[in-house]
């Protein structure tokens, strides 16, 4: 178990008003997990991602969405109807004291409510406002609707996933919800740093999820390739197109991945294969060499490797391969990661208690440092900070709160 140290926050307690749905929730989580005070501002019926599956014990319930729980650690929650005039007045009071507003509404929605950045900036010139949308605030596609799969497609990412002669695939786990939010968190932090170190003024940060994802496969240089060759990148499947052996191989209990690049690495692997299978074939001169040398005998090499990998478990091949200085990596699934000895040894899993769902383990994050703490709390209950914010901070009485609640404002 990780040591529980009382840390001053890595980030200052910036107040972040988080109005984002699934497209931008991860931005607030990143800032909150690093120490910012993030408050979700939810419609009185709850943020719509509270109704996104999967659910705890498969019960559809706004406090049991595991999707919501994952993306909203270290956040608080208030309810507010920003579509009505009373709610808008309260929102403007909140904005006065906020450092950041994060939102992912359809482009133009906040302008219609007169709550867009030019207006909020007048209320609070130090405000940083960050928008995360599928295609950004401007341009011909800015009004296009998109789910995860559409953004994965429009960014070209899907073109690279799967087998060449089959349909392109979307990655599992709705991966388009991460890059845009990651860039947004970086842009927001840069704006805050500049504000506090230099300008004393906020600014607007506009992130297109499509462009964020395009940059997440830039190593394939898709546009230069098209311009220079009039060809396009495509899927190559589970095996590398240039290097052999390199890719996924079946083993006793699933799959293992490995990649052999140098002549030395092949010598090491072929020796090991020989030890395990006793087959002299693998030691032959025609298979020796580096990078492209085994391409002509690719099928035979793969047969020899599979004959070997099938005799051992994934873990045996991984640990022994690494001991022999080969690039062998496990093919994990969700259960194996939850139980992974490396992650456990680093205190990666942090147990957080949620009043309705109870204790579950959450990732600490990808950063290890004495200066950086872990997520502080599980996702908020709907409106759990209403009293703290509305009464203690804005000075409403409990009776006022009851009236606002009855009127559907909060």
């Amino acid at each position, binding site marked *: 178990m990780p040591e529980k140290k009382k840390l001053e926050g890595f980030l200052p307690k910036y107040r972040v008003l988080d109005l984002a749905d699934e497209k931008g929730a991860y931005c607030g989580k990143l800032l909150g997990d690093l120490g910012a005070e993030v408050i979700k501002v939810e419609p009185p019926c709850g943020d719509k991602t509270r109704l996104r599956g999967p659910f705890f014990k498969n019960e559809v319930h706004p406090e049991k969405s595991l999707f919501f729980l994952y993306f909203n650690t270290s956040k608080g929650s208030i309810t507010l109807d920003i579509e009505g005039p009373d709610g808008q007045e309260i929102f403007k009071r909140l904005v006065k004291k906020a450092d950041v507003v994060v939102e992912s509404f359809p482009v133009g929605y906040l302008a219609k409510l007169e709550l867009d950045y030019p207006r909020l900036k007048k209320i609070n010139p130090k405000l940083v406002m960050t928008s995360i949308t599928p295609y950004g605030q401007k341009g011909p596609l800015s009004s296009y609707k998109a789910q995860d799969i559409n953004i994965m497609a429009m960014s070209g990412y899907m073109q690279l996933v799967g087998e060449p002669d089959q349909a392109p695939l979307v990655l599992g786990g709705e991966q388009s919800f991460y890059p845009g939010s990651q860039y947004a968190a970086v842009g927001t932090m840069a704006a805050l740093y500049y504000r506090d170190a230099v300008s004393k003024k906020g600014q607007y940060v506009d992130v297109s999820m499509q462009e964020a994802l395009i940059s997440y496969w830039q190593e394939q240089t898709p546009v230069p390739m098209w311009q220079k060759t009039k060809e396009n990148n495509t899927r190559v499947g589970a095996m590398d197109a240039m290097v052999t052996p390199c890719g996924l191989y079946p083993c006793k209990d699933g799959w293992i991945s490995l990649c052999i690049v140098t002549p030395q690495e092949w010598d090491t692997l072929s020796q090991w294969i020989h030890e395990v299978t006793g087959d002299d074939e693998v030691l032959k001169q025609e298979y020796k060499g580096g990078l492209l040398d085994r391409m002509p005998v690719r099928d035979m090499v793969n047969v020899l490797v599979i004959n070997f990998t099938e005799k051992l478990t994934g873990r045996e091949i991984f640990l022994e391969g690494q001991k022999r200085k080969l690039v062998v990596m496990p093919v994990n699934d969700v259960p194996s990661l939850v139980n992974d000895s490396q992650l456990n040894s*680093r205190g990666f899993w942090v147990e957080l208690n949620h009043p309705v769902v109870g204790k579950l383990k959450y990732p600490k994050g990808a950063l290890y440092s004495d200066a950086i703490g872990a997520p502080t709390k599980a996702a908020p209950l709907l409106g759990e900070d209403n009293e703290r914010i509305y009464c203690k901070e804005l000075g409403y009485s409990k009776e006022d709160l009851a009236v606002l609640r009855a009127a559907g404002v909060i």
Partner: protein
Amino acid sequence: MAKKALEGVRVIEFGLYLALPLATRMLAALGAEVIKVETLTSLDMSWYGPMYAPGCLQLEYRPLKRNVTLDVRQPRGKEIMEELIKKSDIYTTNLGEGFLTKFGLDFKHVQSLKKDLIILWGTGLGSVGPYGGFKAYGRLMQHACAISSMTGTPDSLGVANISYSDYHTSMFNALALIGALERRRRTGKGCFIECPIYESGVVTVGPSFLDYQANKVVPERRENRHRFYAPHGAYPCKGTDRWCTIAVTNEEEWNAFCKVIGNPAWTKSPKFATAADRVKNAKELDKLIGKWTSQRAVYEVMRRMQRAGVSAGIVAKGEDMDKSPHLKSHEFYYETEFYSADFEKPGMEWPVAGKTVTWKEPVYLSDTPCMFGPMHKVGQDNNYVYGKLLGLSKAEIKKLTEEGVFK
């Protein structure tokens, strides 16, 4: 002069590959002075990619960065590296611990050079623990991070032809570094941060971690079908390898979708009456939709769906991105020169190999817009860094260049 968010921040990049240089690319675009330290005494294979235009890959990593050549394996080279670190705010590396220790640049020593230094170390599977120091490649990391276990068909894993989690690492790095600058501004303290590529990918498994713990559910590989929505997939269109994705998430969208495809009789079948029915019979549904889409051009399918309020998007290729009016309206790509490597000669003598496009950082800041520009040649900033920054005389620089310290 445009205002820069990270004006006055100096960053050393002592590393290679993808994750770290992308993080510092972002910092450079935000206005930091990034100095890439490298040596021509060891061959960097990435200079030879891609095959169709060797050298242009470097535009993905080097724009706006200053560049010096330095061989830290020589005693004088190491000393100069130390002087450079003392003049910097941030020191980043993703080299192995063995190498760094061997040349006297272990982190304890580096931290002692400057008390408030911010250090970022990029690792693969991690620096310590059972996998501490293990070797890793980006492309295989998607398997270690369980992403491939959730992708593809029931009996085959779907693999992305890229270094999956390196990109997540790069943004976690950038976020951590700006956060650390803010912390230093507030407290005067530096810090040491490690960011493994492994954990960077693992966090993107997402809600499935909770689903497994709470419900013992292991994610199924369901091709492009969604657990809760249908239709949801990539549908074949006219032409070779052309696909349009469509995602319907509620009744309103389903009705709009049916109208677009002309309300054929099958849409009224009880098999597709409710969302649950459609998810259950998604395979059959997908086939029927494919018959309609395959007779139409990919852009036509997308536009007609979007006009009706249905989420749709083509599976874009480089060609589509090149021609995209939308990306053009954002001026997302810009054209600049790249170079042809010749490790026998100083970097300044490498010829221009051509021009091509690279992308701008996809973050539009209203007051301190991200900058973009050319990449520097290898060693282009030797005189600035060694002369102006470190105060070496011209004669000294000449001598050290001749001795191979600046190779």
